[in-house]
């Protein structure tokens, strides 16, 4: 029961990644691609946490946390770049 629901959730998240990559490939400006990068990061952080939960290794949570912190840094630097400075 729970496994089936989680498999459906995983398929939906994979669809979200596909749509974000579509916007990444098509986006007319660089800012659209930055939005796609943001969405992909927000989908992959729960993916990493799910990988930690199902493999039972707690150290994987640290990777998700580090990725959240550093993607914030990357998107902020992109915003500063678009705003003529860095």
């Amino acid at each position, binding site marked *: 029961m729970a496994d089936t629901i989680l498999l459906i959730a995983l398929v939906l998240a994979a669809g979200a990644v596909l749509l974000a990559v579509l916007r*990444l*490939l098509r986006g007319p400006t660089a800012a659209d691609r930055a939005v796609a990068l943001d969405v992909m*990061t927000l989908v992959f952080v729960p993916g990493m946490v799910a990988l930690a939960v199902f493999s039972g290794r707690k150290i994987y949570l640290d990777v998700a946390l580090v*990725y959240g912190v550093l993607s914030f*840094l990357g998107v902020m630097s*992109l915003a500063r770049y678009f705003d003529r400075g860095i």
Partner: protein
Amino acid sequence: MIWLDALVCLLMIVVAVTATAVKNLVSAVIMVGVVSLLVSYLFLRMGAPDVAMTEAAIGAALTTVIFLIALRRTGEDR
């Protein structure tokens, strides 16, 4: 979930090839960041959290910031 790994590999190849072909350099930098995200997930999937964390630190933050500083300094973006 081998199909998910295959999907991530396929997306990684597509995004990396597009990063070499796109005209706007900032878009190429963002695509390199996406490739870093996907390869970090693959490292984690293969059971190497330390490598994944290093890839996250270098690929998501350091490479993006250094490329953007270099683009700004050289004035290649306009």
